[in-house]
Protein backbone atom coordinates (compact mmCIF):
# COMPACT_ATOMS: atom_id res chain seq x y z
CA UNK A 1 0.00 0.00 0.00
CA UNK A 2 1.45 3.29 -0.98
CA UNK A 3 0.38 6.62 0.30
CA UNK A 4 1.69 8.80 -2.45
CA UNK A 5 0.68 8.38 -6.02
CA UNK A 6 4.18 9.13 -7.16
CA UNK A 7 5.40 6.18 -5.17
CA UNK A 8 9.02 5.25 -5.34
CA UNK A 9 9.66 7.00 -8.60
CA UNK A 10 8.05 10.20 -7.48
CA UNK A 11 10.13 10.29 -4.38
CA UNK A 12 13.32 9.73 -6.29
CA UNK A 13 12.41 12.39 -8.76
CA UNK A 14 11.80 14.76 -5.91
CA UNK A 15 15.21 13.97 -4.53
CA UNK A 16 16.95 14.36 -7.82
CA UNK A 17 15.31 17.71 -8.40
CA UNK A 18 16.58 19.01 -5.13
CA UNK A 19 20.13 18.37 -6.23
CA UNK A 20 20.29 19.90 -9.67
CA UNK A 21 21.75 23.27 -10.44
CA UNK A 22 19.61 25.60 -12.50
CA UNK A 23 20.30 25.24 -16.15
CA UNK A 24 21.89 27.77 -18.41
CA UNK A 25 22.11 27.91 -22.15
CA UNK A 26 24.76 29.32 -24.42
CA UNK A 27 24.47 29.21 -28.19
CA UNK A 28 27.61 29.98 -30.16
CA UNK A 29 27.56 30.76 -33.84
CA UNK A 30 30.34 31.56 -36.24
CA UNK A 31 29.78 32.85 -39.68
CA UNK A 32 30.46 35.77 -41.91
CA UNK A 33 28.43 38.82 -42.85
CA UNK A 34 29.30 38.00 -46.43
CA UNK A 35 27.47 34.69 -46.11
CA UNK A 36 23.98 35.19 -47.46
CA UNK A 37 22.51 32.84 -44.92
CA UNK A 38 23.74 34.76 -41.92
CA UNK A 39 20.97 35.42 -39.46
CA UNK A 40 22.44 38.19 -37.37
CA UNK A 41 19.90 40.77 -38.38
CA UNK A 42 16.95 38.50 -37.64
CA UNK A 43 18.45 37.48 -34.31
CA UNK A 44 18.99 41.11 -33.35
CA UNK A 45 15.49 41.95 -34.49
CA UNK A 46 13.96 39.19 -32.40
CA UNK A 47 15.15 40.40 -29.01
CA UNK A 48 12.66 43.20 -28.61
CA UNK A 49 13.36 44.75 -25.25
CA UNK A 50 16.97 45.69 -24.82
CA UNK A 51 18.18 47.28 -21.66
CA UNK A 52 21.85 47.88 -22.23
CA UNK A 53 24.26 47.80 -25.11
CA UNK A 54 27.95 47.83 -24.42
CA UNK A 55 30.55 48.07 -27.13
CA UNK A 56 34.26 47.36 -26.87
CA UNK A 57 36.47 48.78 -29.60
CA UNK A 58 40.01 47.52 -29.72
CA UNK A 59 42.88 49.80 -30.71
CA UNK A 60 40.84 52.91 -30.32
CA UNK A 61 41.13 55.69 -27.79
CA UNK A 62 38.26 57.98 -28.63
CA UNK A 63 35.02 57.28 -30.36
CA UNK A 64 34.82 58.26 -34.01
CA UNK A 65 32.47 61.19 -34.47
CA UNK A 66 29.88 59.41 -36.60
CA UNK A 67 29.67 56.65 -34.02
CA UNK A 68 29.12 59.19 -31.31
CA UNK A 69 26.40 60.94 -33.23
CA UNK A 70 24.72 57.62 -33.86
CA UNK A 71 24.71 56.86 -30.15
CA UNK A 72 23.08 60.15 -29.32
CA UNK A 73 20.46 59.56 -31.97
CA UNK A 74 19.10 56.41 -30.29
CA UNK A 75 15.33 56.64 -29.95
CA UNK A 76 13.96 58.24 -26.83
CA UNK A 77 11.50 56.41 -24.68
CA UNK A 78 8.65 57.41 -22.41
CA UNK A 79 7.77 56.43 -18.89
CA UNK A 80 4.03 56.61 -18.24
CA UNK A 81 2.95 56.41 -14.64
CA UNK A 82 0.00 54.32 -13.52
CA UNK A 83 -1.20 53.54 -16.96
CA UNK A 84 -4.46 51.56 -16.86
CA UNK A 85 -3.93 48.64 -19.17
CA UNK A 86 -7.21 49.05 -20.99
CA UNK A 87 -5.73 52.18 -22.52
CA UNK A 88 -3.65 49.91 -24.72
CA UNK A 89 -6.91 48.66 -26.21
CA UNK A 90 -8.18 52.13 -26.81
CA UNK A 91 -9.47 52.44 -30.36
CA UNK A 92 -7.57 55.60 -31.05
CA UNK A 93 -4.33 54.19 -29.68
CA UNK A 94 -4.76 51.07 -31.79
CA UNK A 95 -5.26 53.12 -34.92
CA UNK A 96 -2.56 55.70 -34.39
CA UNK A 97 0.07 53.45 -32.88
CA UNK A 98 -0.37 49.70 -32.82
CA UNK A 99 -1.63 49.26 -36.38
CA UNK A 100 1.23 51.41 -37.61
CA UNK A 101 3.60 48.90 -36.09
CA UNK A 102 6.87 49.19 -34.26
CA UNK A 103 5.52 50.26 -30.91
CA UNK A 104 7.40 48.82 -27.96
CA UNK A 105 5.89 48.76 -24.51
CA UNK A 106 7.03 47.08 -21.32
CA UNK A 107 5.77 47.31 -17.78
CA UNK A 108 8.26 48.95 -15.46
CA UNK A 109 8.89 48.20 -11.79
CA UNK A 110 7.21 44.86 -12.02
CA UNK A 111 9.01 41.59 -11.45
CA UNK A 112 8.33 38.67 -13.66
CA UNK A 113 8.45 36.07 -10.92
CA UNK A 114 6.19 37.97 -8.56
CA UNK A 115 3.90 40.47 -10.26
CA UNK A 116 1.85 40.83 -13.37
CA UNK A 117 4.03 41.83 -16.29
CA UNK A 118 2.95 43.16 -19.63
CA UNK A 119 4.72 43.62 -22.94
CA UNK A 120 3.51 45.18 -26.14
CA UNK A 121 5.56 43.85 -29.01
CA UNK A 122 6.26 45.70 -32.25
CA UNK A 123 4.19 43.24 -34.26
CA UNK A 124 1.09 44.19 -32.30
CA UNK A 125 1.08 41.27 -29.91
CA UNK A 126 0.14 42.04 -26.35
CA UNK A 127 1.59 39.60 -23.82
CA UNK A 128 0.35 39.49 -20.26
CA UNK A 129 2.14 37.30 -17.77
CA UNK A 130 -0.29 37.03 -14.88
CA UNK A 131 -0.36 35.32 -11.54
CA UNK A 132 -3.12 32.86 -10.85
CA UNK A 133 -5.50 35.25 -9.10
CA UNK A 134 -5.34 37.90 -11.78
CA UNK A 135 -5.67 35.41 -14.60
CA UNK A 136 -8.78 33.86 -13.17
CA UNK A 137 -10.35 37.21 -12.51
CA UNK A 138 -9.52 38.47 -15.98
CA UNK A 139 -11.51 35.71 -17.66
CA UNK A 140 -9.67 35.62 -20.92
CA UNK A 141 -8.12 32.53 -22.42
CA UNK A 142 -4.42 31.99 -21.90
CA UNK A 143 -1.89 29.29 -21.37
CA UNK A 144 -0.12 27.98 -18.30
CA UNK A 145 3.38 29.26 -18.12
CA UNK A 146 5.84 26.69 -19.46
CA UNK A 147 8.02 27.07 -16.42
CA UNK A 148 5.23 26.60 -13.91
CA UNK A 149 3.26 23.93 -15.71
CA UNK A 150 3.12 21.67 -12.68
CA UNK A 151 1.98 24.11 -10.08
CA UNK A 152 -0.05 26.27 -12.46
CA UNK A 153 0.67 29.48 -10.65
CA UNK A 154 1.41 31.69 -13.62
CA UNK A 155 -0.46 32.15 -16.85
CA UNK A 156 0.44 33.84 -20.09
CA UNK A 157 -2.18 35.58 -22.17
CA UNK A 158 -1.11 36.46 -25.68
CA UNK A 159 -3.33 38.59 -27.85
CA UNK A 160 -2.70 39.67 -31.41
CA UNK A 161 -4.13 43.17 -31.47
CA UNK A 162 -3.81 43.43 -35.23
CA UNK A 163 -5.88 40.31 -35.78
CA UNK A 164 -9.34 40.73 -37.19
CA UNK A 165 -11.00 39.09 -34.19
CA UNK A 166 -9.47 41.70 -31.92
CA UNK A 167 -10.72 44.66 -33.91
CA UNK A 168 -12.60 47.16 -31.74
CA UNK A 169 -16.17 46.08 -31.31
CA UNK A 170 -15.57 42.39 -31.90
CA UNK A 171 -16.49 39.90 -29.21
CA UNK A 172 -12.98 38.94 -28.13
CA UNK A 173 -11.97 42.56 -27.99
CA UNK A 174 -14.92 43.46 -25.82
CA UNK A 175 -14.28 40.57 -23.49
CA UNK A 176 -10.69 41.61 -22.92
CA UNK A 177 -11.70 45.23 -22.61
CA UNK A 178 -14.33 44.55 -19.95
CA UNK A 179 -11.90 42.23 -18.24
CA UNK A 180 -9.33 44.97 -18.02
CA UNK A 181 -11.74 47.74 -17.14
CA UNK A 182 -14.12 46.16 -14.65
CA UNK A 183 -12.83 42.83 -13.41
CA UNK A 184 -9.09 43.36 -13.35
CA UNK A 185 -8.32 47.06 -13.53
CA UNK A 186 -4.55 46.65 -13.79
CA UNK A 187 -2.49 49.77 -13.52
CA UNK A 188 1.23 49.87 -13.88
CA UNK A 189 4.15 52.06 -14.79
CA UNK A 190 4.89 51.56 -18.43
CA UNK A 191 7.86 52.14 -20.68
CA UNK A 192 6.87 53.03 -24.21
CA UNK A 193 8.93 53.65 -27.26
CA UNK A 194 8.37 53.64 -30.96
CA UNK A 195 10.33 53.60 -34.11
CA UNK A 196 10.52 57.22 -35.25
CA UNK A 197 10.12 56.41 -38.93
CA UNK A 198 7.12 54.15 -38.42
CA UNK A 199 4.48 56.83 -38.36
CA UNK A 200 3.08 55.73 -35.02
CA UNK A 201 2.14 58.41 -32.59
CA UNK A 202 1.90 58.04 -28.86
CA UNK A 203 0.95 61.61 -28.08
CA UNK A 204 -2.75 60.96 -27.69
CA UNK A 205 -2.12 58.34 -25.04
CA UNK A 206 0.61 60.27 -23.27
CA UNK A 207 -1.43 63.42 -22.99
CA UNK A 208 -3.87 61.72 -20.63
CA UNK A 209 -1.34 60.55 -18.07
CA UNK A 210 1.74 61.67 -16.22
CA UNK A 211 4.67 60.86 -18.38
CA UNK A 212 8.30 61.72 -18.80
CA UNK A 213 10.63 61.41 -21.73
CA UNK A 214 13.98 59.74 -21.25
CA UNK A 215 17.07 59.63 -23.33
CA UNK A 216 19.26 56.54 -23.30
CA UNK A 217 22.31 57.18 -21.14
CA UNK A 218 25.67 56.94 -22.85
CA UNK A 219 28.88 56.27 -20.98
CA UNK A 220 32.40 55.85 -22.33
CA UNK A 221 35.54 54.63 -20.71
CA UNK A 222 38.94 54.19 -22.26
CA UNK A 223 41.17 51.35 -21.24
CA UNK A 224 44.88 50.88 -21.66
CA UNK A 225 47.10 47.82 -21.63
CA UNK A 226 44.25 45.43 -21.83
CA UNK A 227 45.30 41.78 -21.84
CA UNK A 228 43.21 40.08 -24.44
CA UNK A 229 42.83 36.40 -25.28
CA UNK A 230 42.97 35.00 -28.75
CA UNK A 231 39.40 35.52 -29.85
CA UNK A 232 39.45 32.83 -32.51
CA UNK A 233 40.54 29.93 -30.34
CA UNK A 234 39.29 30.84 -26.86
CA UNK A 235 36.45 28.73 -25.46
CA UNK A 236 33.14 30.62 -25.33
CA UNK A 237 32.70 30.63 -21.55
CA UNK A 238 36.24 31.84 -21.01
CA UNK A 239 35.71 34.53 -23.59
CA UNK A 240 32.49 35.78 -22.04
CA UNK A 241 34.08 35.72 -18.62
CA UNK A 242 36.93 37.82 -19.90
CA UNK A 243 34.54 40.26 -21.51
CA UNK A 244 32.47 40.42 -18.36
CA UNK A 245 35.58 41.18 -16.36
CA UNK A 246 36.39 44.02 -18.73
CA UNK A 247 32.83 45.31 -18.42
CA UNK A 248 32.81 45.17 -14.64
CA UNK A 249 36.29 46.66 -14.28
CA UNK A 250 37.73 43.59 -12.65
CA UNK A 251 41.47 43.42 -12.53
CA UNK A 252 42.91 40.44 -14.29
CA UNK A 253 46.54 40.75 -13.32
CA UNK A 254 46.44 37.94 -10.80
CA UNK A 255 48.61 34.93 -10.83
CA UNK A 256 46.69 31.69 -10.80
CA UNK A 257 47.99 30.93 -7.33
CA UNK A 258 47.09 34.14 -5.54
CA UNK A 259 44.87 33.97 -2.46
CA UNK A 260 42.16 36.39 -3.43
CA UNK A 261 41.43 35.56 -6.99
CA UNK A 262 42.76 33.21 -9.58
CA UNK A 263 41.03 34.88 -12.48
CA UNK A 264 43.45 35.26 -15.32
CA UNK A 265 43.14 36.12 -18.94
CA UNK A 266 42.92 32.90 -20.97
CA UNK A 267 46.10 31.93 -22.77
CA UNK A 268 47.41 32.64 -25.39
CA UNK A 269 47.02 36.33 -24.81
CA UNK A 270 48.26 39.54 -26.23
CA UNK A 271 48.07 43.03 -24.88
CA UNK A 272 45.96 45.64 -26.54
CA UNK A 273 47.49 49.01 -25.81
CA UNK A 274 44.30 51.01 -26.11
CA UNK A 275 40.64 50.12 -26.08
CA UNK A 276 37.40 51.97 -25.70
CA UNK A 277 34.29 50.81 -23.92
CA UNK A 278 30.98 52.48 -24.67
CA UNK A 279 27.75 51.61 -22.94
CA UNK A 280 24.23 52.83 -23.46
CA UNK A 281 21.30 52.18 -21.15
CA UNK A 282 17.54 52.51 -21.41
CA UNK A 283 14.77 50.97 -23.45
CA UNK A 284 16.66 50.42 -26.68
CA UNK A 285 15.07 49.37 -29.93
CA UNK A 286 16.46 46.52 -32.05
CA UNK A 287 16.35 48.87 -34.98
CA UNK A 288 18.93 51.14 -33.33
CA UNK A 289 21.11 48.18 -32.45
CA UNK A 290 20.94 47.17 -36.08
CA UNK A 291 22.14 50.59 -37.15
CA UNK A 292 24.92 50.43 -34.59
CA UNK A 293 26.14 47.13 -36.00
CA UNK A 294 26.23 48.59 -39.51
CA UNK A 295 28.17 51.55 -38.25
CA UNK A 296 30.63 49.38 -36.39
CA UNK A 297 31.25 47.35 -39.53
CA UNK A 298 31.95 50.54 -41.44
CA UNK A 299 34.30 51.67 -38.72
CA UNK A 300 36.10 48.35 -38.74
CA UNK A 301 36.69 48.68 -42.46
CA UNK A 302 38.92 51.66 -41.83
CA UNK A 303 40.95 49.99 -39.07
CA UNK A 304 43.99 47.80 -38.99
CA UNK A 305 43.40 44.19 -39.92
CA UNK A 306 43.93 42.81 -36.42
CA UNK A 307 41.38 44.99 -34.70
CA UNK A 308 37.95 43.80 -33.73
CA UNK A 309 34.78 45.04 -32.10
CA UNK A 310 32.50 43.41 -29.58
CA UNK A 311 28.91 44.33 -28.95
CA UNK A 312 26.90 43.00 -26.01
CA UNK A 313 23.16 43.53 -25.79
CA UNK A 314 21.36 42.78 -22.53
CA UNK A 315 17.65 42.14 -22.62
CA UNK A 316 15.27 43.19 -19.86
CA UNK A 317 15.29 40.66 -17.05
CA UNK A 318 11.58 41.07 -16.36
CA UNK A 319 10.32 41.08 -19.89
CA UNK A 320 7.69 38.35 -20.35
CA UNK A 321 9.14 37.49 -23.75
CA UNK A 322 12.63 36.71 -24.88
CA UNK A 323 13.72 36.04 -28.43
CA UNK A 324 10.90 36.19 -30.92
CA UNK A 325 8.01 36.29 -28.47
CA UNK A 326 8.97 33.05 -26.77
CA UNK A 327 8.20 32.92 -23.10
CA UNK A 328 10.77 34.14 -20.66
CA UNK A 329 10.95 33.36 -16.97
CA UNK A 330 12.93 34.26 -13.91
CA UNK A 331 14.15 31.64 -11.50
CA UNK A 332 17.10 33.38 -9.92
CA UNK A 333 18.14 35.79 -12.58
CA UNK A 334 16.47 36.17 -15.92
CA UNK A 335 19.56 36.84 -17.99
CA UNK A 336 19.05 36.99 -21.73
CA UNK A 337 21.78 38.64 -23.68
CA UNK A 338 23.93 38.21 -26.74
CA UNK A 339 27.47 39.14 -27.63
CA UNK A 340 28.66 39.75 -31.14
CA UNK A 341 32.34 39.82 -32.04
CA UNK A 342 32.97 41.38 -35.42
CA UNK A 343 36.30 40.97 -37.14
CA UNK A 344 37.98 42.88 -39.86
CA UNK A 345 37.33 40.23 -42.50
CA UNK A 346 33.54 40.45 -41.92
CA UNK A 347 33.40 37.21 -40.01
CA UNK A 348 31.60 37.25 -36.71
CA UNK A 349 31.11 35.20 -33.58
CA UNK A 350 27.73 35.41 -31.97
CA UNK A 351 27.08 34.13 -28.44
CA UNK A 352 23.49 34.04 -27.26
CA UNK A 353 22.98 33.29 -23.59
CA UNK A 354 19.80 32.46 -21.71
CA UNK A 355 19.09 31.69 -18.09
CA UNK A 356 17.29 28.93 -16.27
CA UNK A 357 13.79 29.67 -17.49
CA UNK A 358 14.16 30.43 -21.10
CA UNK A 359 13.75 28.58 -24.32
CA UNK A 360 16.70 28.06 -26.59
CA UNK A 361 17.61 31.23 -28.50
CA UNK A 362 16.93 31.13 -32.26
Amino acid at each position, binding site marked *: *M*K*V*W*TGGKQGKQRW*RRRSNTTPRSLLVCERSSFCDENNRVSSQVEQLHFNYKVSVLLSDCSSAPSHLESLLTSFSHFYLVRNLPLHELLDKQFLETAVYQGNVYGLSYRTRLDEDNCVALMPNGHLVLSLDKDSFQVLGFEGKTSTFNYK*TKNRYVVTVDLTDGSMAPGRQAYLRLLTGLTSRLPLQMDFLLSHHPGGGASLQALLSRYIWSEHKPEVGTCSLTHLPCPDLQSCDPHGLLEWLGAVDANISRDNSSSSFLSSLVCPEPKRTVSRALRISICGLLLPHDVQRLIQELRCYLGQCQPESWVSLTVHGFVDSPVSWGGKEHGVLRGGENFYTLFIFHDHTYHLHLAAGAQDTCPP
Partner: protein
Amino acid sequence: MSSGWRWRDLPSGVKFCGRKFSRKKSGTAMVRVKARYLLCELNVSDRTQLLLLDDRAVLAAVKTAVARIHGDYGAALCSMRFSIKYLNAHTGIVFLRFLRRAYKLLWSALPFITSIDARGHKIPCFLNCLHVGGTIRTCQKFLVRYNTQQLHRMLPKCRNEEEKQEVRKAILNCSLTKGNNEEFHIESESEEDEEAQS
Protein backbone atom coordinates in the same frame (compact mmCIF):
# COMPACT_ATOMS: atom_id res chain seq x y z
CA MET B 1 -13.76 42.51 1.34
CA SER B 2 -15.66 39.65 -0.18
CA SER B 3 -17.11 41.46 -3.11
CA GLY B 4 -15.65 38.96 -5.54
CA TRP B 5 -17.10 35.92 -3.80
CA ARG B 6 -19.61 33.92 -5.63
CA TRP B 7 -21.31 30.65 -4.93
CA ARG B 8 -19.82 28.73 -7.79
CA ASP B 9 -16.34 29.91 -7.04
CA LEU B 10 -16.24 27.84 -3.95
CA PRO B 11 -14.72 24.44 -4.13
CA SER B 12 -16.53 21.70 -2.33
CA GLY B 13 -15.01 21.50 1.12
CA VAL B 14 -13.07 24.67 1.33
CA LYS B 15 -9.50 24.23 0.23
CA PHE B 16 -7.74 27.30 -0.86
CA CYS B 17 -4.36 25.92 -1.42
CA GLY B 18 -4.29 26.23 -5.14
CA ARG B 19 -3.21 22.67 -5.65
CA LYS B 20 -4.74 19.26 -5.92
CA PHE B 21 -3.85 16.97 -3.12
CA SER B 22 -3.81 13.28 -3.30
CA ARG B 23 -6.64 12.35 -1.05
CA LYS B 24 -5.88 8.91 0.24
CA LYS B 25 -7.05 7.12 3.25
CA SER B 26 -4.03 7.59 5.38
CA GLY B 27 -3.61 5.75 8.58
CA THR B 28 -3.01 2.17 7.67
CA ALA B 29 -0.09 2.44 5.30
CA MET B 30 3.33 1.31 6.38
CA VAL B 31 6.16 3.15 4.76
CA ARG B 32 9.66 2.00 5.25
CA VAL B 33 12.18 4.65 6.03
CA LYS B 34 15.10 3.93 3.83
CA ALA B 35 18.46 3.59 5.46
CA ARG B 36 21.92 2.37 4.61
CA TYR B 37 23.87 0.03 6.84
CA LEU B 38 27.62 0.24 6.79
CA LEU B 39 29.50 -2.81 7.95
CA CYS B 40 32.86 -1.62 9.23
CA GLU B 41 35.85 -3.25 10.76
CA LEU B 42 37.76 -1.50 13.51
CA ASN B 43 41.47 -1.93 13.03
CA VAL B 44 43.65 -1.43 16.07
CA SER B 45 47.27 -2.18 16.69
CA ASP B 46 46.64 -3.83 20.01
CA ARG B 47 43.63 -6.12 19.85
CA THR B 48 43.13 -6.21 23.61
CA GLN B 49 42.13 -2.57 23.51
CA LEU B 50 39.08 -3.49 21.48
CA LEU B 51 37.38 -4.76 24.59
CA LEU B 52 37.31 -1.25 25.98
CA LEU B 53 35.04 -0.04 23.22
CA ASP B 54 31.34 0.46 23.56
CA ASP B 55 28.55 1.83 21.42
CA ARG B 56 28.69 5.27 22.87
CA ALA B 57 32.41 5.74 22.29
CA VAL B 58 32.13 4.79 18.62
CA LEU B 59 29.03 6.94 18.19
CA ALA B 60 30.78 9.95 19.66
CA ALA B 61 33.88 9.37 17.53
CA VAL B 62 31.83 9.22 14.32
CA LYS B 63 29.85 12.29 15.28
CA THR B 64 32.96 14.32 16.04
CA ALA B 65 34.61 13.28 12.81
CA VAL B 66 31.54 14.19 10.79
CA ALA B 67 31.21 17.54 12.54
CA ARG B 68 34.86 18.27 11.85
CA ILE B 69 34.84 17.23 8.21
CA HIS B 70 31.36 18.36 7.19
CA GLY B 71 30.55 21.03 9.73
CA ASP B 72 27.12 21.89 11.02
CA TYR B 73 25.42 20.55 7.93
CA GLY B 74 27.07 17.17 8.32
CA ALA B 75 26.32 17.13 12.01
CA ALA B 76 22.67 17.83 11.27
CA LEU B 77 22.49 14.98 8.80
CA CYS B 78 24.34 12.78 11.24
CA SER B 79 21.80 13.40 13.96
CA MET B 80 19.01 12.04 11.79
CA ARG B 81 18.40 8.32 12.27
CA PHE B 82 22.06 7.63 12.87
CA SER B 83 22.83 4.81 15.25
CA ILE B 84 25.26 2.04 16.02
CA LYS B 85 23.23 -1.09 15.41
CA TYR B 86 25.76 -3.61 16.57
CA LEU B 87 29.26 -3.63 17.96
CA ASN B 88 31.32 -6.73 18.53
CA ALA B 89 34.12 -5.80 20.88
CA HIS B 90 35.91 -9.09 20.24
CA THR B 91 36.17 -8.92 16.49
CA GLY B 92 35.84 -5.17 16.08
CA ILE B 93 32.87 -5.37 13.76
CA VAL B 94 30.57 -2.33 13.77
CA PHE B 95 27.23 -1.79 12.11
CA LEU B 96 26.37 1.84 11.42
CA ARG B 97 22.97 3.00 10.27
CA PHE B 98 22.78 6.18 8.22
CA LEU B 99 19.97 8.01 6.51
CA ARG B 100 20.04 6.86 2.92
CA ARG B 101 20.08 10.29 1.30
CA ALA B 102 23.15 11.28 3.28
CA TYR B 103 25.17 8.13 3.63
CA LYS B 104 27.77 9.01 1.03
CA LEU B 105 28.53 12.30 2.70
CA LEU B 106 28.77 10.73 6.13
CA TRP B 107 30.77 7.78 4.86
CA SER B 108 33.36 10.17 3.51
CA ALA B 109 34.09 11.32 7.04
CA LEU B 110 34.81 7.82 8.39
CA PRO B 111 38.38 7.57 7.04
CA PHE B 112 39.27 10.59 9.15
CA ILE B 113 38.67 8.78 12.41
CA THR B 114 42.12 8.10 13.83
CA SER B 115 41.33 7.35 17.42
CA ILE B 116 38.41 6.60 19.68
CA ASP B 117 38.15 7.75 23.26
CA ALA B 118 36.81 4.97 25.43
CA ARG B 119 36.81 4.81 29.21
CA GLY B 120 39.53 7.35 29.55
CA HIS B 121 41.81 5.63 27.04
CA LYS B 122 42.60 6.95 23.64
CA ILE B 123 42.62 4.02 21.29
CA PRO B 124 44.34 4.69 17.98
CA CYS B 125 42.42 2.92 15.26
CA PHE B 126 40.87 3.28 11.87
CA LEU B 127 37.60 2.16 10.37
CA ASN B 128 37.62 -0.06 7.35
CA CYS B 129 34.32 -0.27 5.56
CA LEU B 130 33.63 -3.78 4.36
CA HIS B 131 30.15 -3.60 3.00
CA VAL B 132 27.26 -1.24 2.39
CA GLY B 133 23.80 -2.72 2.45
CA GLY B 134 20.22 -1.63 2.40
CA THR B 135 19.09 -3.98 5.14
CA ILE B 136 20.73 -5.59 8.11
CA ARG B 137 20.09 -9.00 6.59
CA THR B 138 22.25 -8.41 3.52
CA CYS B 139 25.03 -7.14 5.73
CA GLN B 140 24.69 -10.20 7.90
CA LYS B 141 24.96 -12.50 4.90
CA PHE B 142 28.01 -10.63 3.77
CA LEU B 143 29.60 -10.84 7.18
CA VAL B 144 29.14 -14.60 7.36
CA ARG B 145 30.76 -14.98 3.98
CA TYR B 146 33.53 -12.63 4.93
CA ASN B 147 34.27 -14.46 8.15
CA THR B 148 34.35 -17.79 6.35
CA GLN B 149 36.86 -16.34 3.96
CA GLN B 150 38.98 -15.13 6.81
CA LEU B 151 38.92 -18.56 8.40
CA HIS B 152 39.93 -20.16 5.14
CA ARG B 153 42.80 -17.79 5.01
CA MET B 154 43.80 -18.71 8.54
CA LEU B 155 43.87 -22.43 7.79
CA PRO B 156 47.29 -22.65 6.12
CA LYS B 157 48.82 -20.53 8.83
CA CYS B 158 47.88 -22.90 11.64
CA ARG B 159 50.82 -24.30 13.52
CA ASN B 160 49.45 -27.59 14.82
CA GLU B 161 46.69 -30.04 14.08
CA GLU B 162 44.64 -28.92 17.03
CA GLU B 163 44.31 -25.40 15.76
CA LYS B 164 43.47 -26.67 12.32
CA GLN B 165 40.68 -28.79 13.69
CA GLU B 166 39.28 -25.83 15.48
CA VAL B 167 39.30 -23.63 12.43
CA ARG B 168 37.72 -26.34 10.30
CA LYS B 169 35.02 -26.70 12.85
CA ALA B 170 34.41 -23.02 12.82
CA ILE B 171 34.17 -22.94 9.02
CA LEU B 172 31.71 -25.77 9.09
CA ASN B 173 29.75 -23.99 11.73
CA CYS B 174 29.25 -20.80 9.86
CA SER B 175 28.37 -22.41 6.58
CA LEU B 176 25.58 -24.38 8.22
CA THR B 177 22.94 -21.76 8.90
CA LYS B 178 23.29 -18.12 8.90
CA GLY B 179 21.52 -17.62 12.18
CA ASN B 180 23.56 -19.51 14.73
CA ASN B 181 26.95 -18.17 13.96
CA GLU B 182 28.10 -17.65 17.48
CA GLU B 183 30.12 -14.51 17.00
CA PHE B 184 27.27 -12.90 15.23
CA HIS B 185 23.84 -12.81 16.66
CA ILE B 186 21.73 -9.79 16.34
CA GLU B 187 18.21 -9.84 17.45
CA SER B 188 16.72 -12.08 14.83
CA GLU B 189 14.11 -9.58 13.75
CA SER B 190 15.94 -7.82 11.00
CA GLU B 191 12.66 -6.24 10.07
CA GLU B 192 13.22 -3.74 12.79
CA ASP B 193 14.37 -1.25 10.19
CA GLU B 194 10.97 -1.39 8.67
CA GLU B 195 9.55 1.05 11.03
CA ALA B 196 5.97 1.83 10.63
CA GLN B 197 5.28 5.35 9.69
CA SER B 198 1.79 6.54 10.39
